[in-house]
């Protein structure tokens, strides 16, 4: 009976306690925590940008454009954790090739594509004038470098040949943006709602199975998305303020560049409005989550014995301290207590994002913390130091990679869709 180590998928990070079925492991690990978290950010960022375009919340003008670009940068990242988690990542395309529509995951291909098309089109209308102006000014430039030639070609392609920037044409763009933003809201909610449905419809899992799951997921998605937008907005504004103060880059040569005071007042204004929206969605999200918990405790069905042990004892710190106290109550107080400042709000948004991440963790990992036999437990140990490709992609490394990607993408996208153009420069 000489046995060689042969690890089956999931075994490396799962520790079993008491009776767990032989085939049970924590199969859905960190990447599946990242997946709803990242899609949540996408959906939330889009909803925020739509608040301006659809509901005409004028004060959100600047952050709206920023969130639209950022939500586009986040898009591929919503797909990334799924691909990293697949055992056969090269076959990922099968989801689009032979979609089996009775599976929530198969909707991914369709919904994701629809959503991507909407965001991309909206961006196109938003920035078409910018493309035309840039490509024309580059064409007019007498001595173009190689990069200039490339940029000219790129922007020319991006105009899709629509070079008319008369006021009437631009007005059409505006209208299209508004329509697409309106269409985008339900699609964004669907994109994330079905991520909740993926979990909520797993009848075998006592913790996941609840019709509230999609709604909870949408609310927390909007919360995390708005929080991320506020945070990134503040960070970029601080950088711009710093540059305006020191007269670096644009501020060194451009007379029309916004002054330090303009930037400061714009930032205060935007943050004030957006953080109120953040508060509303937080209240909705927390209410639903608590309702779910109370309902389970009150009805005490067969699974409650084991769920109670997981929720109230084993995962108590993760759920009640990290998720609810640090991730919900503390930022809530930071934002509602009088004398709110931009700095306090920014700290609150970080805590909110942490709270939403912990909520995803507690749902995904918590749902696998107990055996289907209701007689044992599984502990998940996140692989920190990667030993091989599997422990990298399903470990801390993979999670950090997913987290860093949107910022890298945003940096590139910002070259094409400058998120901070002044109004008259765009249209």
């Amino acid at each position: 009976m000489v046995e060689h180590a042969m690890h089956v998928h999931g075994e490396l990070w799962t520790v079993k306690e008491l009776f767990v079925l032989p085939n049970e492991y924590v199969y859905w690990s960190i990447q599946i925590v990242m997946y709803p978290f990242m899609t949540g950010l996408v959906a939330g960022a889009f909803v925020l940008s739509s608040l301006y375009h659809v509901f005409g919340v004028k004060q959100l003008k600047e952050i709206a454009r920023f969130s639209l670009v950022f939500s586009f940068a986040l898009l591929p990242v919503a797909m990334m954790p799924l691909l990293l988690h697949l055992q056969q990542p090269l076959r990922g395309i099968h989801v689009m090739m032979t979609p089996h529509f009775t599976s929530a995951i198969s909707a991914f291909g369709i919904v994701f594509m629809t959503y991507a098309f909407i965001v991309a089109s909206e961006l196109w209308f938003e920035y078409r004038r910018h493309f035309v102006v840039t490509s024309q000014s580059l064409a007019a430039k007498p001595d173009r470098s190689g990069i200039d030639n490339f940029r000219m070609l790129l922007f020319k392609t991006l105009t899709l040949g629509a070079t008319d920037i008369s006021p009437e044409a631009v007005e059409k763009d505006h209208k299209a943006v508004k329509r697409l933003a309106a269409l985008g809201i339900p699609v964004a909610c669907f994109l994330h709602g079905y991520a909740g449905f993926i979990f909520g419809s797993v009848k075998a899992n006592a913790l996941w199975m609840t019709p509230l799951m999609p709604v909870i997921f949408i609310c927390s998605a909007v919360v995390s998305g708005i929080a991320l937008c506020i945070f990134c907005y503040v960070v970029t504004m601080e950088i711009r303020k710093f540059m305006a103060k020191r007269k670096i880059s644009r501020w060194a040569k451009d007379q029309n560049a916004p002054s330090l005071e303009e930037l400061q007042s714009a930032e205060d204004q935007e943050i004030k409005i957006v953080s109120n929206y953040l508060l509303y969605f937080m209240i909705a999200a927390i209410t639903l989550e608590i309702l779910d918990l109370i309902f389970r405790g009150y009805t005490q069905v067969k699974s409650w014995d084991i769920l109670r042990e997981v929720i109230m004892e084993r995962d108590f710190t993760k759920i009640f301290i990290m998720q609810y106290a640090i991730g919900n109550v503390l930022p809530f107080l930071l934002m509602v207590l009088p004398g709110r400042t931009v700095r306090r709000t920014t700290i609150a948004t970080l805590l909110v994002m942490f709270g939403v991440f912990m909520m995803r963790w507690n749902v995904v990992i918590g749902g696998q913390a107990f055996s289907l036999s209701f007689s044992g437990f599984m502990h998940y140990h996140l692989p920190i130091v990667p030993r091989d490709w599997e422990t990298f992609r399903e470990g801390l490394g993979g999670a950090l990679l997913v987290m860093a990607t949107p910022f890298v993408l945003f940096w590139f996208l910002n070259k094409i869709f400058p998120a901070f153009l002044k109004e008259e420069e765009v249209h």
Partner: protein
Amino acid sequence: MKSHVWRPLYVVIAIIAGLLLFREFYVPDTFGSGEYGFMYSYHNLENQEVWKNQPLKYQDTGKQKMHEYCGECHGDVVDIRTEDLHGIIPCENCHGPALEHPDEPELLVVNRERGVCLRCHTLLPYTTSERKRIPGINPNEHNVDEACVDCHDPHNPRLEDM
């Protein structure tokens, strides 16, 4: 003049058309649903044949047909054991799967480890299970370093014949 508003839509349609075209070549024609409908049986219909054609490893039919395969050549041994207590155990449980024997492998290696016997003959105090009818020993006390088959004949385990 044509409105430029529809241009993104043309791009979208081109992408979708490209995907559908790619799908045409990529997906086997044999995809379809069986009797259980799209919900439960949407698949590549050819895959069933793949499973049907997996190689057989256990050749004997066990006690259901009284060791048809093994009995062909080893009839004398089969005859002893079917009359006896261990007659209920299929040959391949201890001798290993026949595979293509006698061609390949020519000789089956018999597992003579204590573990094989201990599967049934470890003493477990479970009076409500069939286990109570099987004679059991404590493997940590009963002739610890010896193989069971040194004293007991697995084909005829009756103690009075030892």
